């Protein structure tokens, strides 16, 4: 097992930006049709060696079907899948260099932890001492050595998750597939396990492809995310790109919270655009160009944490609007302010609660000014 220095791995290069890099997993124009609908609709995707790639989407987005095609449980109706340069068409699951961690974990209930993990190695006909050695090593890695003789039903959810991970990892697959790996854990454990999974992934250097509906999980763990909707990939990018530069209303709305308003492009320069938005009661200045003609209908997306709230009118001429505080959601670390604008639309602003026991900066029914920097608004054309 290649041990990669975690510190170095965290500063991993970005092969997807390197045109010379050869993708490790290539998904080429893959379509999966079931009798009455197509679950996956012409998807092409390149995944690079050592990535922790997340397929993110709601139910029915086709993410699980795509994962199951990688595992070999479903065959693509069209297109092909290559793993490390080998076409996987016609290769049954038991001959693929791929292992999967199931959402239900699918641990064999009649075998103990050790037997569960050894199962895959036994299928390969490895000699017994070697099996014992590798099982022991992987049990150490997931810190389950003291539970080796337990049956799955004698373990907690978190322990089962570790066994499932160990069982999938022990064969050192070229590709590890994780189907909602943390969905069955409670919130606290989930957060802790996220980082453990990442550390293990960096340690073993295996390429992970993970399916999740939880955007926080994908943002925290993934090197890149593919956002999926109705069988198609809407956007592929790093968590940062997906959040700050969504390419569509769907992505902007699906990842995090966002304020979204309709507007009309009135001025289109290469370094800035001006948008007339009746919802915001005036024009909005955005300091990046867009690929749309003046007069086109566009949408303006602004993240709540990028909005400033003040009692007095801030300096400047652009990107300022007024409203009345309708609701305040106190979350402890931050508070969400829901402000009704003069147009009747709502704008959500998130402010950190920096001082303990402080009176809220702004109270209910107060008239406030809302403003944002020109660089923080996103113009969306679809």
């Amino acid at each position, binding site marked *: 097992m290649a041990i990669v220095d975690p510190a170095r791995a965290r500063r991993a290069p970005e092969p997807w930006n390197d045109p010379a890099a050869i993708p490790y997993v290539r998904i080429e124009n893959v379509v999966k049709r079931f009798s009455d609908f197509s679950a996956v609709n012409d998807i092409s995707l390149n995944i690079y060696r050592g990535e922790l790639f997340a397929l993110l989407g709601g139910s029915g987005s086709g993410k699980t079907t795509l994962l199951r095609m990688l595992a070999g449980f479903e065959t693509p109706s069209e297109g092909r899948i290559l793993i490390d340069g080998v076409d996987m068409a016609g290769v049954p699951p038991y001959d693929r260099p791929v*292992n999967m961690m*199931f959402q239900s974990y699918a641990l*064999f209930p009649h075998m103990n932890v050790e037997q569960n993990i050894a199962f895959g190695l036994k299928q390969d006909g490895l000699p017994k001492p070697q099996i014992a050695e590798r099982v022991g090593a992987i049990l150490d890695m997931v810190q389950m050595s003291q539970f080796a003789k337990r049956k799955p039903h004698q373990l907690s959810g978190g322990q089962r998750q570790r066994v499932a991970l160990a069982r999938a990892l022990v064969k050192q697959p070229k590709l590890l597939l994780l189907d909602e790996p943390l969905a069955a854990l409670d919130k606290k454990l989930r957060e802790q396990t996220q980082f453990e999974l990442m550390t293990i992934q960096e340690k073993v250097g295996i390429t992970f492809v993970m399916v999740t509906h939880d955007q926080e999980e994908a943002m925290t763990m993934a090197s890149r995310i593919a956002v999926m909707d109705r069988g198609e990939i809407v956007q592929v990018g790093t968590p940062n790109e997906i959040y700050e530069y969504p390419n569509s209303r769907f992505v902007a709305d699906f990842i995090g919270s966002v304020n979204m308003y309709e507007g009309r492009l009135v001025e289109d320069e290469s370094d800035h655009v001006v948008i007339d938005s009746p919802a915001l009661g005036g024009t909005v200045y955005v300091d990046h160009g867009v690929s749309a003609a003046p007069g086109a209908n566009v949408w303006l997306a602004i993240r709540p944490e990028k909005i400033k709230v003040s009692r007095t009118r801030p300096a400047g001429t652009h990107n300022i609007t007024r409203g009345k505080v309708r609701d305040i959601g106190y979350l402890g670390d931050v508070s969400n302010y829901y402000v009704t604008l003069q147009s009747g639309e709502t704008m959500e602003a998130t402010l950190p609660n920096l001082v303990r026991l402080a009176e809220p900066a702004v109270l209910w029914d107060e008239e406030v000014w809302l403003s944002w920097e020109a660089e923080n608004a996103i113009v969306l054309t679809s």
Partner: protein
Amino acid sequence: MARPARAYLSGEESRVVGFAEGLHLRLLQFAPYRGTIALGRRVGITGARFVIAIPYVWLLLFFLTPFLIVLAISFATPTEMVPPFSFTAFADGAINLAEAVGKYLFLFSDSLYVSAYLSSLRIAAISTVLTLLIGYPLAYGIARTSDRWRVPLLMLVILPFWTSFLIRIYAWIGILGETGLLNQVLQGIGLLDRPLSLLGTEWAIFFGIVYAYLPFMVLPLYATLEKMDLSLLEAASDLGARPFRAFLTVTLPLSLPGVLAGCMLVFIPAVGEFVIPDLLGGSETLMIGKVLSDEFFLNRDWPLASAVAVTMLVILVLPIVLFQRLRARQAEGEG
């Protein structure tokens, strides 16, 4: 301490109740019903206990009582009167032990009974294995077929029950006879030049038992196979197990409770089977059910027949107890 004022709608008005509970609430208005309930409560009988008690009372009346009568008769002495036994061994206040348990001693000294027991166990065991070999693929096939076909296929397994057991066994005489259907077909397609004489042999009994008890094997097997988590098979395949290996290492061990239940349901009644060996087996096959019936009806030796029955029960209780133990251990294991 003052009770807090009720803040919400009172329970009687707001609660949605089921049919039985609604009936109960309505009946509470009538004094006799109220009285019965109150009386029941006082002696510790609640509604739930009452419902559970019904099958127990049933078993007590119609299973345990007859068995106790049989047990008593097995210690009696045969006579020529009606009923054909008397308790002379207990007549003088002192128990004549030799006379009371004499039948049991006789059972073990006469080789007829011992070999009848052994032959019954052997025939039942072979039939059970054959039923399992046929029933397992059948149950597996039904459990893995599409939802649309599962119910019709299960219905076909149960369908023979709609005809009388006796008639179905008679039908096998027609099938297995020298000029029967089976021989005609086999000779017709040229596989045989002389008819097989199956009827009156042990093979005919195997045919009969496998046929008659197949549903008892298929149904518990189907139940365990059907509820098996299919992602376990995917996991096995994912980890490199070919379909047959996956079956041997995952499906088969996980279906053992069903295998065991099916085998018990076939083996236990097959040991005491009377009709099938009597109709299909002819005179040379010895089974304890036939011996039992001969003792009762031909020899009119009720005490000896009762002793045969009690001994058979004891022999069969052993595997049942073992089975229950195993079940309990498994239940514990599944926690």
